[in-house]
């Protein structure tokens, strides 16, 4: 695998306190333990450094709900559970990123599962001239997988970082990485991505 820093963007998806933090709203589901065991936050942060050093764009995607979740359509259990846990609310500790943006990074806010749904992500990627997206973050089988699927439909080459993605258990991680994603994305470790950028 080879990645051109001029046409490759890193997406850091939903790495916020509520999704992976030990005191986060979904810690009981196993999300915090999984992220900690696999040092996902550390690997994603280091990958972001590598992209910046290579001159490649880093885009943070955050799930942000408004207070009271007033404009969240609660048509699926996923959105009901976010509202019930009062998670990812603008301005709270839970919504704050665990991988902090550096100067020059871009931020995209979303309210749904896919990073592409009703956001400026596609516009930004086109404007940056990105043709490849490298996806890391949480949770692997929800937002990350959905973003990879949408990226493929949109025409991007997709790389999913197998050891810089977190979900609630090993079983869910395998369900995300070993099936449908094999037909829409290249799977690679953070080290493999760094090497492909020419920054081992």
């Amino acid at each position, binding site marked *: 695998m080879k990645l051109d820093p001029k046409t490759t963007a890193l997406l850091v998806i939903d790495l916020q306190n509520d999704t992976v933090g030990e005191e986060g709203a979904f810690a009981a589901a196993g999300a915090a333990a999984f992220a900690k065991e696999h040092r996902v936050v550390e690997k994603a942060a280091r990958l972001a450094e590598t992209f910046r050093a290579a001159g490649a764009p880093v885009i943070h995607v955050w799930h942000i709900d408004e207070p009271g979740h007033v404009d969240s359509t609660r*048509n*699926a*259990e996923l959105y009901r559970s976010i509202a019930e846990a009062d998670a990812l609310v603008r301005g709270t500790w839970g919504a704050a990123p665990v991988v902090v943006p550096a100067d020059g990074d871009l931020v995209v806010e979303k309210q749904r599962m896919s990073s592409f749904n009703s956001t400026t992500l596609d516009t930004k990627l086109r404007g940056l001239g990105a043709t490849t997206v490298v996806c890391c973050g949480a949770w692997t089988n929800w937002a990350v997988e959905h973003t990879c699927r949408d990226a493929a*439909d949109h025409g991007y080459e997709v790389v999913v970082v197998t050891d810089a993605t977190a979900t609630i258990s090993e079983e869910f991680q395998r369900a995300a990485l070993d*099936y449908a994603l094999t*037909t829409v994305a290249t799977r690679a470790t953070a080290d493999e991505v760094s090497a492909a950028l020419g920054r081992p």
Partner: protein
Amino acid sequence: MDPIDPKSAAMLIQDLQNDVIIEGGAFADSGAPAHATSQNVVENVKGLAAAARKAGVQVIHVWYIVEQGAPGLKQNAPLFQGVKDANALVRGSWGAAPADGLEPQEGDQIVEKMRMNAFYDTKLDILLRGLGVETLIITGAWTNMSIEHTARHAADAGYRAVVASDGTSTVDDEWQNVALNYAMQNVASVGTCAEIAGALSS
């Protein structure tokens, strides 16, 4: 399953085309025809579509169609390379035609697509909004590819997604299980065609 109001429901029959699920189709080597047979997907979907039409539910066929040579089908992922390499789903061919028994009936709608998600750059969302649809019943193939992607997008777009466990098929039971029993559990309601038909009349 919670009741489904037929007046605000639509049923998708997605990608149940010869190349996708029938012996002799372009992807037969994947095991898809055998899984479609073991799921009895054609008969189950036919039955649910009949019940849906009777209840006044709009039936919408979603077909994956490319032109000869797949021009404009960006080859950025193995999925799309597979469609082009297999010369699959070409307009006017047997492979692109719906499986026997699933031909559109009068009053049905047809949506064409050329990517995985039935919503992506198609008229599906416009049609559903215009019809006042709130609940989307999803049947078709392959469960872990187009079906799951469409269910995920339906949830993101604000619809109540209902996926038919025996009105969908993929390449084998393991892939079916992974599609239905992980992320899908909090994105959509999953039930059999009989349960969905029951929910329509309750």
